[in-house]
C-alpha cells in the first residue's frame, strides 16, 4: 500500500494504491490522519486501489469524521467494481460522496 498526494486548486487529492486491509490499515490511518490535519477539501483517488476490507473502511470512516469535525469535506473517485460493491454492502456509499471521475469530483467539491 502506498499513498501519494497532490493538489488541484484548493482540493487535496490523496491516491491510495494497493490494498486497504487489516495489514495496511494501521499505516494508512497514521498517514491519513497527518495529511488531513488543517485541510478542508479532500478527494481520495482510488483508481489504483485493489481492494478494501472493513479494516480499510474504518480508516475512511475515521477520516470522514476528522474532516467533518473541522468543517471539511471528503469525496472519492476511481472505485473498481469490488471496492464499489464493498461500499454499497456496508452502506458507506450513502454516507460518503462517491464521484465517477476526478473531473467530476473536482467540479463538485
Amino acid at each position, binding site marked *: 500500500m502506498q499513498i501519494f498526494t497532490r493538489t488541484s486548486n484548493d482540493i487535496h487529492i490523496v491516491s491510495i494504491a494497493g*490494498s486497504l486491509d*487489516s495489514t495496511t490499515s494501521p499505516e494508512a490511518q497514521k498517514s491519513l490522519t497527518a495529511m488531513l490535519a488543517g485541510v478542508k477539501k479532500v478527494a481520495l483517488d482510488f483508481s489504483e486501489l*485493489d481492494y478494501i476490507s*472493513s479494516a480499510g473502511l474504518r480508516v475512511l470512516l475515521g477520516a470522514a469524521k476528522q474532516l*467533518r469535525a473541522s468543517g471539511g469535506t471528503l469525496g472519492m473517485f476511481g472505485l473498481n467494481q469490488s471496492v464499489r460493491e464493498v461500499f454499497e454492502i*456496508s452502506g458507506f456509499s450513502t*454516507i460518503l460522496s462517491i464521484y465517477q471521475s476526478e473531473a467530476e469530483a473536482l467540479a463538485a467539491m
Partner: protein
Amino acid sequence: MQSRAECNFPTDRRGELGHGFRMSVGAHPGGVGEVNAALAEFAEAHALPEDLRRDLSVALDDLLANALSHGRTGPDPCSVTVEVKLDQERVTVIVTDDGPPFDPFARAAPDTTLSVEERPIGGLGIHLVGQLMDKVDYQRRDGHNVVVLVKELANG
C-alpha cells in the same frame, strides 16, 4: 514469529478435482498478510477473474482479522489453516483454527443505514464476508472451528 515455511503444508497440490493450496499461519496480523499474498499468487497462476479474487481477499482478510480480534489464538504459531480449492464451478476456502468454539456468523447484521456520526467503528467485517460470498458455513468439528466460504465462478 515462526515463518510460513516452518509450519507450511505443500503450497501447490493438484488433484483430479482441480487445483488448490493449503497453508498454515500463526494467528497474528502477519499471518493474514501471508494468506492474502498466497491467494493473489494462486489467483494469478490460475487466471481467476480480478473481481472474484478481490472479493475473496476482502472475505479472508475480514474473517481472519475477526478471529484475531476475538482472541481465538491457540498456542500453536501455525494454528490457523487456510485451504483454497478451485474447480470448474467455484472457489472454496476452508479456514480451520483450534481456538475455543466461535461461530463468526452468529452475530446480528450491523445497522448500515446510520450516518457517519452515529456509526460505531467496527462490526462490519463479517457482514461483508456473508454478502460477498455465495455461501458461508460454520461447524465445530473435532475441537476445531471450521469456516467454509464458497464463491461461484459464474457469479464472479
